[in-house]
Structures are given as C-alpha cells and as structure tokens.
C-alpha cells in the first residue's frame, strides 16, 4: 500500500514541477493559445464560407471540432519536456532515485490538464465572441468539457510515449505533427465527412477523433448523440490506459526491474 501512496505523492511532486513551468515559460503557453485561435479565425472566416454544414452555422460546427483538435495537441509539451529531460540527464537522475517508476510521466500528463483547461477557456471565450452559442443544458455542457479533458489526457500519454522514443526534442516535435495532424484533419472536426472520397470517409467515420467530435457536438449544439458519448469516453479511457502502460514500460525498460 505504501507503494501506491508513494506513486501518488511522487506524481504530485512532479506535477508541481511542471505546473511551475507554465508561468515561467510564458512563450510556450502563448504559442499554445495563439495557434488554435489562429485556426479558429482562419477556418471561421477563410474556409468557413465555402464549407456547407447543414443544420448549423459554420462557427457552431467548427468550435467543437477545433476544441477536440486543440486537446489532441495539448500534450505536446509533454513530448517536448520528456525528450528534453532525457537529453539533459534528468531522467537518469529520476531513475536513480527511490521514486515511483510511473511518476515522471504521470506528473507530466497531470500538469497538461492545467494547460488544456487554459486553452479551452481561451478558445470558448473567443468562440462565444465571434458567434458560437450552446444549445444544450448545463449538465450536458459540463459532461462535454469533462470528455474534452479526458480526451486531452489520453493524448498526453501518446505524447509521453513519443517523448520517450524520440532521439531529440526536435524529433519528438515532428513525430507528433506527422502522426496527429492527419488524424485530426481526416475526421469530422472541420468538414462533414460525407464530402470526402469514399475511402477517406470510411476512415473519418471510424477515426476516434470523429467520435469525440461528434460527442462534443451532441453535448454542445444538440446533434443526435447516438452512441458517440459512450464511444468518446471508452476511446479516451482506452487510449489513456494503453499508452500509459506502454510509456511506463518504455520508461522502465532500461532500468533494472
């Protein structure tokens, strides 16, 4: 039982370390909020007029999609940070300490939740200003926000794994872009998949990102939910668990047991 207690307290110690980074490296946070905002404005005013979204204004259609995309990239700092810690020998120090083997990664992914909350607040704020409107009840909106955070947390674990397998912080960055970028675009996030060629449409409909986007649309703007809410929760939890196990295994691998 003390093993579990240490795992929790070690994780909190490292989460605090990563929280403290946020106000101290404001350039990173700025990049993190400005980039999605740029996407909102680009899609809303440049592409939006050319994308028909039956039943919704494009802004209403766009905001859930772009929130999910932003959550998918929210764990970026984790990949960068872990790759940097590896390069600078900090991971060696942590591995030589009598601390929990999962805490370095769990502390990172936990701290990502804080940056993800900041991003959601900024983007929803701007969304509301440029015409986005909720058409659902408060409990549905809250559930939607929680699913966004769970989904972001799951992707933080993917990034944790990427940080561990990359040879450098730069490599971690491009690996993240190459894998996640197409995933978010070949989905229902920015356009209705029905407009895509058949094979892409098939992929987009099975893409877990689409399932999460559809769940958020159901919970924010009242699209028919179907099984998407449960699907989004199951996919997010599954991804989190799978990559947490994989990443911790990778972290421990070079260590004696």
């Amino acid at each position: 039982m003390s093993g579990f207690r240490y795992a929790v307290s070690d994780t909190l110690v490292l989460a605090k370390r990563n929280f403290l980074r946020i106000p101290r490296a404001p350039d990173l946070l700025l990049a993190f909020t400005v980039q999605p905002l740029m996407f909102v404005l680009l899609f809303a005013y440049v592409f939006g007029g050319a994308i028909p979204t039956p039943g919704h204004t494009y802004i209403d259609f766009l905001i859930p999609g772009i929130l999910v995309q932003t959550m998918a990239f929210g764990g970026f700092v984790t990949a960068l940070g872990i790759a940097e810690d590896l390069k600078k020998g900090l991971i060696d120090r942590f591995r030589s300490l009598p601390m929990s083997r999962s805490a370095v990664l769990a502390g990172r992914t936990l701290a990502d939740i804080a940056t993800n909350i900041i991003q959601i607040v900024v983007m929803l704020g701007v969304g509301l200003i440029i015409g986005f409107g909720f058409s659902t009840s408060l409990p549905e909106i809250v559930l939607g926000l929680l699913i966004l955070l769970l989904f972001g947390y799951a992707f933080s674990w993917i990034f944790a794994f990427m940080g561990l397998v990359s040879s450098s912080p730069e490599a971690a960055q491009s690996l993240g872009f190459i894998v996640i970028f197409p995933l978010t675009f070949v989905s229902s996030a920015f356009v209705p998949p029905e407009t895509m060629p058949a094979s892409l449409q098939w992929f987009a409909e099975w893409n877990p990102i689409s399932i999460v986007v559809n769940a958020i649309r159901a919970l924010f703007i009242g699209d028919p939910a179907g099984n998407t809410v449960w699907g989004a929760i199951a996919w997010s939890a599954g991804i989190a668990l799978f990559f947490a196990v994989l990443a911790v295994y990778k972290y421990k691998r070079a260590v004696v047991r």
Partner: protein
Amino acid sequence: MSGDAAIEARGLVKSYGKVQALCGVDLTAPAGTVLGLLGPNGAGKTTAVRILTTLLPADGGEARVAGIDVMSEAPKLRTEIGLAGQYAAVDENLTGFENLDMVGRLYHLPKGEPARRAEKLLEDFELDEAGGRLVRTYSGGMRRRLDLAAALVAEPPVLFLDEPTTGLDPRSRLALWETIEGRVAEGTTVLLTTQYLDEADRLADRISVIDHGVVIAEGSSDELKDQVGGESLEVTLERSDDVGGAIAALTPLASAEPRPEDGILRVPVSVRKGAVADAVRRLEQAGVGIDDISMRRPTLDDVFLELTGHAAEEDEEDGEER
C-alpha cells in the same frame, strides 16, 4: 565477494549491439575511500556507473553497492546512492531551492526535511544567494555545484560522480574538488570517473585505469607511477658543454644511465632521500655550474601513455558512451 567494500563489482560485461562497452570489469572501493575510474572517452566509464546506479542492466557479472545487490535489489539500493553526472541534471525552470526540495521529496525524506536540507546544502555550496533564482540564470559552475548538491540531499553513503568537472573553469573545478574532499572526510564513499589525470591524482585513494572496456591497471597513484619507473633528478646546466662532466659526476647516484634531453639532464635515482643534496655536492666538486635541479616523479600522464600507448585525453572515434 567480501562484504566490507562499499562498491564491489566482479566481471561486469555489457555490450550495445556489436559494441562491447565492458569486457569483464572488476572494481573495488572500501568504505570511506575514493575510487577513481580513469580513462579516455568511450572507455566504458559511464557504462560502469550506469550499471552500478541501477540505470542499466549488465549482461554479465555481479556487483554490490553498500552491501546491496545491484541487480536483484535495485529499488532498495536507490535509497543509498547519489548520482551526479556530466550533464548537470537540474531543472532550468525551477529555482535552486526548488530543485533540491524536489529531489528530497522524491527520496521520501520525512516532512520538512527536504526544505531544511535544501537550505543547508545551498549554504554549503555557496548558492544561498542564488537559491531563489531560476537555474537558467546560473553559470556552468553553479549548475554543477547544484547538481552535486542534489546528489547529496539524502546524505547517501555512496556517491557516484561521472566526470563532475568536465568543462568547468579551473576555479570552479578547484571548488568542486574541495567539496568532494569534504564529503569524503565525513565518511562518504565515492566512485569518480574522470579523464583528467590531475583530478584522479588529487582525489582518488585508488585508481582503476580503464581502456576499451578493460581495467588495464589498478592501484594508488603512487603505485601506478612506480609501474612506469621511479623518480629522476632533472638538472639544468649553466653551460651545455659541461654535460660530460655532469654525467661523470652523477653516475654513482644513478639507478640507470643518465641521459641529456632538451638541455636537461635526467638522472634516474632509486633512493629519493638526500639525492638532491648529494647531487649538488658532487656537481660542485666537479666544478659544474647548475641553473636548476629538482626531483621529478612520473605523472599519471606518463602512466597512461605507458599503459595504453596513447594519451589520456585523446578522443576516440567511438567517443559517445551513452
């Protein structure tokens, strides 16, 4: 293996793919002493440290540190060791104090203890004024000191220092040496890797010279120097055409033939005591004027060159050991 050594390794073997990093390395450090692991880049020093600090499993051999088996009792061992590496593994976005406090918490020290020890260590390492500043504002020497302080937070009985002064300016280097000596005086056992001979000479009680994954010599600094021959008198003559007379005068003292080299006459001697006075008297009687006369001991540089056929600080092509 006997139980009283703080660090004891037998037959450590490790390869990375086709590269054989360690080919059966034995190391021993009695408690309270400094073992210097001396060798060029790529010799296997870092690999040995990584195995002994539980970061890397060995392919073969066995090792105990502080009486604890490195392979089978790794979690237990981690409470007994401190590691400071060549990378100054500290978080740049934390202050000096926050770095040490974090490490103390991760060692699971009792409540309040991490902060108390962090304060104390910052003071000991003359970082107390910088303790509240972010580490990214620190100089290279300050980062190394903080890194070493982090390794000492838990007051571990065994300390591993992997090239602790590589890249430091001479002043910071000397300060770090003094700190390490202080810890050893308090009973800490240290394994120190270095490619600097003067560092091993100054700090290490015993030195293992390692090259291409093999320990090629082991002993105290003096013992290693004796292996390449003893001391010699170095005489600088006032007039170089006196050299014949000088050789004749000093031959009775010499243990081997005196030989002139670059205007300096080297006379190997077997007895150190009184040799200088004796030589001065003999040269005076022979009417040979001298500018300078001194005893010269072989340096570890001579030792390294003799043992490996190449100089200690020469870079190998497979320099990266991580």
